[in-house]
């Protein structure tokens, strides 16, 4: 039997065509892994076993008939529970959606179904994607597969944990301020937040619409490129979605990066991301990763992104403002209802359903968002934040005149202990300090585990926790960050590419 541990999408596809195994065998192995280990990890909220097994059989039948299949055919995926799959629950880990069943497919799901990918189940998350640890789920706390006392990161913690614990070959998450990249870094897997607009948000339960993007969480950068290429593209149901600018050989560059081009990239190192308070392990791991990246032939250049320190405040004004508007639709009448609510008139229904249905963090953000938008405070908060957002974006535009990509840490420290940051929301918000700017500016960014053996060994002696580094690219230059990431991995973890 093939080991799931080093299995990637690429290897799965090759093995399937060579008939080394069947889709059914592999799908069953994943469900076996889930039934044995998920009671400990809690990555999944619901499973889709019957449909998955049927779909696996139909993929095997196609292959047996000698039909050609897409690269994602039969690939067993985990899907974050804020992405709709028709006929399956989509709770966004909130009590207010506990009984909601999706009535249509998100565009990304439709695209994956066209490729005949397989959905193992829906994964746990912070309620409505609000959090950095997956502790804000109304249903369960997901544990980090690398250390069960620690959080997997969030809000896509279930998806990252499922991939890291070999309970899915790859996963989808969503990223509003770091919700794909931070859990990927904490769990030691790869996570990509695409350029704003590259992937349709149709069928994603909205948190902050000007920041949200769906993206892949995978074992390798190459797998992220494959999944991203399958889900991207203009969708008439999302007016902000788009195709990459014409004249680029985008798809070929994504899937077959050219080392000669990658070598010529100039990598910016922003001083504002290497400040006091950065965890020692993170700093050390960054140095090691930069040395390897430098070994590929790229040049480094010191840069400054002077408004970085204002990005967190800016984000925590704009995002709740959008949250307060997006979550108004959950009124306790449509979608799903709490049954034990006794109310006598319409207003009473709203107050009680929303009061009992939303968790603490959702309530905090709705109230905060209502405040920053209210008359008398709008200029001081919301307008000011949108001005700061422009300054943050200008910083990147200026930097990208001199460099092609920017390399930074993903988070100030490795995975923290469960319960460590739940009391004070500000401490939790600070976990996203390095990931938020890319969302504000709409840029593509990837989180890649620091793979060097020496780091892995040093950390095993101490804490054994993964650390991730981030590469931020120019708008629509996913090929740069994915290309550089792939050559980094081919040097450090060749076994995943053999």
């Amino acid at each position, binding site marked *: 039997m093939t080991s799931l541990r080093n299995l990637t999408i690429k290897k799965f596809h090759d093995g399937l065509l060579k008939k080394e195994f069947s889709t059914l065998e592999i799908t069953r192995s994943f469900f076996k892994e889930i039934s044995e280990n998920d009671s400990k990890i809690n990555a999944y909220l619901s499973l889709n076993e019957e449909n998955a097994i049927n779909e696996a059989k139909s993929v095997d039948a196609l292959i047996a008939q000698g039909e050609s299949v897409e690269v994602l055919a039969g690939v067993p995926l985990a899907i974050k529970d804020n992405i709709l799959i028709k006929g399956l629950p989509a709770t966004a880990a909130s009590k207010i959606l506990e009984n909601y069943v999706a009535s249509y497919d998100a565009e990304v799901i439709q695209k994956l179904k066209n490729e005949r990918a397989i959905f193992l189940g829906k994964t746990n998350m912070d309620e409505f994607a609000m959090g950095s640890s997956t502790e804000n789920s109304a249903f369960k706390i997901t544990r980090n597969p690398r250390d069960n006392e620690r959080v997997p990161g969030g809000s896509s913690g279930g998806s990252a944990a499922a991939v890291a614990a070999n309970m899915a070959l790859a996963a989808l998450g969503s990223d509003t301020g770091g919700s794909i990249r931070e859990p990927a870094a904490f769990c030691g897997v790869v996570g990509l937040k695409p350029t704003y607009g590259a992937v349709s948000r149709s069928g994603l339960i909205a948190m902050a619409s000007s920041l949200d993007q769906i993206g892949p969480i995978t074992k390798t950068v190459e797998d992220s490129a494959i999944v991203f290429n399958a889900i991207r593209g203009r969708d008439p149901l999302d007016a902000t979605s788009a195709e990459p600018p014409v004249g680029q050989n985008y798809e070929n560059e994504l899937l077959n990066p050219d080392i000669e081009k990658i070598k010529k990239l100039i990598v910016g190192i922003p001083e504002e991301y290497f400040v006091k308070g950065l965890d020692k392990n993170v700093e050390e791991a960054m140095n090691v990763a930069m040395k390897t990246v430098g070994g590929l032939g790229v040049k480094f250049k010191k840069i400054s992104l002077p408004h970085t320190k*204002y990005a967190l405040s800016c984000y925590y004004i704009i995002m709740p403002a959008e949250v307060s508007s997006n979550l108004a639709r959950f009124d306790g009448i449509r979608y799903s209802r709490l049954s034990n609510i006794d109310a006598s008139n319409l207003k009473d229904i709203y107050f009680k359903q929303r009061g009992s249905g939303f968790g603490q963090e959702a309530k905090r953000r709705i109230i905060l968002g209502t405040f920053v938008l209210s008359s008398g405070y709008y200029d001081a908060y919301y307008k000011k934040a949108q001005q700061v957002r422009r300054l943050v974006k200008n910083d990147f535009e200026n930097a990208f005149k001199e460099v092609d990509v920017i390399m930074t840490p993903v988070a100030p420290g490795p995975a923290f202990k469960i319960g460590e940051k739940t009391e004070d929301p500000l401490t939790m918000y600070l976990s996203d300090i390095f990931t938020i700017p890319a969302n504000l500016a709409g840029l593509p960014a990837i989180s890649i585990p620091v793979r060097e053996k020496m780091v892995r060994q040093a950390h095993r002696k101490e804490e054994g926790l993964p650390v991730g580094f981030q590469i931020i690219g120019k708008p629509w230059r996913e090929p740069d960050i994915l290309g550089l990431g792939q050559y980094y991995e081919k040097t450090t973890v060749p076994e995943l590419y053999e």
Partner: protein
Amino acid sequence: MASKIDIKTLEHLAELSRIKLDKKEEEKLLEDMGKILAYFDELKSLDTSGVEPMNGPLRRSVSEASGTELKNSLREDEERLNTNQGAGADVFPESKDGFLKVPPVFQ
């Protein structure tokens, strides 16, 4: 920038947000919001006069501010097959004989 929220403001915000809060929640929220708004005070020191807010390109009113600056790209106004008809009604929590059932809204 007023960085304090008092209990009256909080109750008003909860009323606007249609969220029922109990006493304990109110106390925790007051404390948390105080800390968060104090953190936002750092923005005061940043001069943004003359900076165009990064709202959407339409900006006819506040409600159209989107923050992404993408151009609206609407689909062609042409006939097409809608495969999603009735999907909202199918999953409505309660329905009877094709009607959607809502809780009584008048006393």
